[in-house]
């Protein structure tokens, strides 16, 4: 499996660490149900899914990776900082 880092280009999977699903963080003041959903409930689709990967052995960027869990195709990547997952730079 190879992942295209928006900075470094296409790289071997061994350079990356995977965190898990790429999810927007609940707003300040979100209720217990919303946090429960954010922390514990996943769809586990047999199709395209978005995850956060860290270019640990490379540039140190967090990357949102869209990949197909059936074909293992990496469909697209972009910097997590531009993926509107909450937080401000």
């Amino acid at each position, binding site marked *: 499996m190879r992942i295209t880092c928006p*900075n*470094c280009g296409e*790289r071997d999977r061994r350079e990356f660490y995977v965190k898990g699903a790429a999810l927007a963080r609940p707003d300040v003041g979100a209720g217990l149900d919303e946090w429960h959903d954010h922390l514990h409930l996943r769809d586990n689709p047999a199709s395209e899914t978005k995850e956060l990967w860290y270019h640990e*052995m*490379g*540039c140190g960027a967090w990357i949102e990776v869209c990949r197909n869990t059936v074909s293992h195709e990496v469909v697209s990547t972009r910097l997590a900082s531009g993926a509107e997952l909450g937080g401000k730079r």
Partner: protein
Amino acid sequence: MDDLIAMTPCDGLLPVTIGDVTLTEDLPVAMTSIAPYAGQDEALNAALKDAHGLDFPAINRSTVKADARAIWFGQGIALLQGPAAAIELAKFAALTDQSDGWAVVRLEGKGAADVLARLAPVDLRRQNFKQGHTVRTELAHMMASITRIGPDALQIMVFRSMARTLVHDLKTAMAGVAARG
């Protein structure tokens, strides 16, 4: 007060030559990482130009002027190698002294790229990785910075604590390349 003896990261390990490839240690006077603050990229670039005659390097590139080299060092960060960073840069970027933190070696010779092909999962051949090009990548399970600083010369950096492992793995790969003739 004890007299402390300064030792370089690769003290007692280098230089070494195997086949047509030589591995030596480089000792920049200073190394400083430069991480521009949000929205300060242009101001920092101007200050870097004024102070050191260098452009802030583009992604996967390095810039060089006399004894100073600026290497792209990761997401939003460059490493100034050579002179101590001018204090004016601190207005526009976070500066961190890295001088004692890294082992810096130079792999030189016609087979230098063949040696690294055994250790790093990127194409470092001269036609793809030209002088001034740089990468952050894995080298034998270590986080490395690799820069082509001459037609057949590659600068390799890893954390100082990994200096002995770096030299060991490079020597093994150098012997392997030399054995194939």
